[in-house]
């Protein structure tokens, strides 16, 4: 056992999928020209006031319900004061002492199959800041306020995570959850889902937490894992060489693969939080909470449990197939079309289909191969029209041509040969052509059985029914 124990807590920022901003009517769509989606409220003009977006509130409540948290009947927006050019008002509207969601949890499955509960301290609503632009602007800094005022929910975990791997598993779990809830598009490249990691180490067996460093703005699962691993070894090296960990904010540099302290000027902030006098306390009625509860979909854990029992899948398979709502729906469509064979469907969805999608960087919902099409192929395996091996060829043809399984099978004459006399005829030919091998086999060289299977398959273009072929070949070779 390692001498050091790692302690990690994550602050996940999920951009809420509202059409307009949290305190203004501007659109939130990604990719508009700079400042095209910034109105007077977003620009922090004199005299303007924030008006809370009710949809953002409902989304935060939805999250809270999904993680079995307490939904505050009254929560308070506060101002976090600091100067930065991408922060037009000189303060960010966030929630501080009284967040909308508190005391929730999600379960993650560790490598050894153990289920671990990760506590979620709180989730609060806040507005995003804008962006500073440097590219193509020599000598000046540009400010793009399109993102300013985009609604975020910040999900703060307890320091329950004990390794970079656990942290990634947890983050993926939350990622899955927010997408199930349809409150966040989960697009990490566009920054819709990102996290800050609080990392510390302590001697195994001690209770007191070590001094932590906060790694800011990690926007991929890979970076989360690498940054934490780097940070953990940095802290251990430091402590083992007699040094001290300094509480500070660090940035991960993916090119160098290391974390570095942010400039001290930026971390010495006293944010002077106080309740925002422009916004009244956010009061939620039981009726609203129940109304939101009624919109909750089947959640990932519930769905996985149902898949495991209803389709007799392993916990692992059920977990993979429910990783996204779209994938789970696709799988269930395939099973429905097939009228059974859930294990066959699972293997193909997780195997060939996933590989093909991955290869072309497509989402399952892309429509490239509709569930009914894949089911059409699996039907032909189930009724033994084709073998599993041929099916892979058919799949590739379907994928590239968009044709149905039956069209491909007919056009390429791939239908499996199940006529015993036809197979026997081929066996006889092969035996005649290979008298030496036949003699050796009969003299006890059992390994040559595979040679004969291969020859027959070659002669039939792989279409001989494998089970039948085995049986007939054994009989014939035996004399």
């Amino acid at each position, binding site marked *: 056992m390692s001498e050091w124990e790692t302690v990690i807590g994550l602050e996940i920022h999920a951009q809420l999928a509202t059409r307009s901003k949290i305190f203004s009517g501007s659109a939130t769509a990604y990719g508009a020209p700079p400042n095209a989606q910034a109105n*007077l409220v977003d*620009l*922090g*003009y*004199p*005299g*303007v*006031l*924030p*008006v*809370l977006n009710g949809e953002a509130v409902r989304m935060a409540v939805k999250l809270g319900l999904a993680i079995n948290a307490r939904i505050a009947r009254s929560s308070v927006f506060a*101002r976090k*004061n600091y*100067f930065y*050019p991408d922060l*037009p*008002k*000189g*303060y960010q509207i966030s929630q501080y002492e009284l967040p909308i969601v508190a005391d929730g949890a999600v379960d993650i499955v560790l490598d050894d199959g153990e289920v671990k509960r990760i506590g979620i301290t709180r989730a609060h609503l806040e507005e995003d800041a804008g962006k500073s632009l440097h590219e193509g602007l020599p000598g000046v*800094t540009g*400010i793009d306020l399109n993102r300013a005022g985009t609604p975020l929910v910040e999900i703060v975990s307890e320091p329950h995570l004990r390794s970079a791997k656990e942290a990634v598993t947890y983050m993926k779990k939350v990622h899955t959850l927010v997408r199930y809830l349809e409150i966040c598009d989960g697009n990490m490249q566009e920054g819709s889902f990102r996290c800050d990691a609080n990392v510390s180490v302590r001697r195994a067996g001690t209770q007191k937490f070590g001094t932590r460093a906060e790694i800011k703005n990690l926007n991929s699962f890979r970076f989360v894992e690498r940054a934490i691993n780097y940070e953990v070894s940095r802290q251990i090296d430091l402590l083992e060489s007699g040094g001290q960990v300094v509480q500070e904010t660090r940035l991960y540099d993916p090119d160098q693969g290391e974390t570095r302290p942010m400039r001290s000027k930026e971390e010495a902030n*006293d944010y*002077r*939080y*106080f309740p925002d*006098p*422009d*916004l*009244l306390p956010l009061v939620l009625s039981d009726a609203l909470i129940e109304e939101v509860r009624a919109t909750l979909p089947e959640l990932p854990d519930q769905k996985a449990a149902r898949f495991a029992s209803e389709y007799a899948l392993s916990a692992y398979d059920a977990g993979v197939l429910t990783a996204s709502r779209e994938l789970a729906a696709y799988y269930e469509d395939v099973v429905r079309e097939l009228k059974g064979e859930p294990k066959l469907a699972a293997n193909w969805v997780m195997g060939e289909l996933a590989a093909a999608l991955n290869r072309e960087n497509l989402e399952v919902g892309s429509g490239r191969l509709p569930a009914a099409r894949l089911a059409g192929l699996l039907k032909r395996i189930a009724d033994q029209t084709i073998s599993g091996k041929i099916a892979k060829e058919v799949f590739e043809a379907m994928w590239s041509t968009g044709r149905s399984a039956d069209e491909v099978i007919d056009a390429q004459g791939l239908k499996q040969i199940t006529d015993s006399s036809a197979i026997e005829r081929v066996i006889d030919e092969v035996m005649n052509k290979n008298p030496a091998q036949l003699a050796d086999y009969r003299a006890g060289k059992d390994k040559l059985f595979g040679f004969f299977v291969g020859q027959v398959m070659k002669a039939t273009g792989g279409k001989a029914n494998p089970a039948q072929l085995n049986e007939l070949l054994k009989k014939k070779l035996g004399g």
Partner: protein
Amino acid sequence: MSELHKRTLTELAAGLRSRKFSSVELVRALLGRIEARQGVLNAFVSVTGEQALADAAAADRALAAGGGGALAGVPIAHKDLFCTRGVRTTCGSRMLDNFVSPYDATVVAKLKAAGAITLGKTNMDEFAMGSSNENSYYGPVRNPWNVKLVPGGSSGGSAAAVAARLIPGATGTDTGGSIRQPAALCGITGIKPTYGRVSRYGMVAFASSLDQGGALTTSAADAALMLREMAGFDPNDSTSVDTAVPDYVAGLDAPLAGLKVGLLKEFFDKGLEAENERRIREALAVFEKLGARLREVSLPNLPLSVPTYYVVAPAEASSNLARFDGVRYGYRCKEPRDLLDLYKRSRGEGFGAEVKRRIMTGTYVLSAGYYDAYYLRAQKVRQLITDDFRRAFRDVDVLMGPMTPTAAFAIGAKTDDPIAMYLNDIYTIGANLAGVPAISVPCGFVDGLPVGLQIVGPHFGEARLLNVAHRYQRETDWHTRVPQGYA
């Protein structure tokens, strides 16, 4: 026709409606007066004559066609912190000297929709911080009763303009007395409505939980008419209250028999000048004659209002004024070396001394380690003061007391002593902290200078306040007195 400026806002609205005179005539007359007096009074930062005449001509056409709103063709002015589209909104600050708002404040839009014509923007203490109008980048406003004296603040330009009969009514804002105190010192009527009664959208924020827009006019009847058009729920202001606006004008004449008046015991203290107190007592006698029943009422926490206010208001101001950073609009220093230099010099050069003092005070009281001792404690005291008012209004209909400890003081007399200046707000701040409405009405003179009676009502009690003030003005003529040389 040269006497139009002597008429009240109510009379002018009626005269325009009955086509006794035109809005163009009226606007032209008042523009002439404004121009003639600007050099002495300095009541305006911007005068928008050309636009006003065009708007007046349009109002005349609407009136001729039998249309137009309740204030069709009536000239008004806005305190220069109400955003006005296309006209600069300076807040009396170098910081916004070049700022032209791309939108109208809700109050501006509502008065425009009622047909009012804006003649200009009035001078004020920088960002509404001050009680004397000496803190303006555009120089002090002078009191028309004696140009060596301050008009009060921060809505000093509005008060002086109305008192000098340059304009029949003007908007103001009241964060700690900024409508009522200058109204008292200039001998006019000024109402601060309930917090949430008038939209703050487009009103450049000083202290968001205290700021409230209101009206300065020569009479309570005029204030009723103007406020009726200004007030109401605004979806753009989350702190505005969604409750119907009564017809303040319709209720003006209700009798006062049986009115329960509470005298604010804490206001009749040693700080109140004897002559001033005599004027207040005389006014109270008028109410007794009208059938009101007087009793002394104590609000024990009220004496804590000045220190409470000077924690809460600067705290909010320090945050509200952070947006003036030289990045997007307003003053920007010349050739900043880097970002920090841009911030430091733009703000250092753009803000005046009093604004900086309050930003520093506010930053301090919100700082880690001091928050609980100052801001949190001040909020608790604020709640106690609010409770005092609520308790008092269980027993009385309105509260009365003096508006200011003394009449207007000399320009320069208190500029070196901010504490003495802050104590000038001692009678005004309580209503802001509690969010209750209050009105100042002229109640006589001390050594030739006007003083005001303050009447405070319960939340959303504006109709009663205006009714009480109007009945008093039917019995007295203090509000009709015009400073010498301005008749």
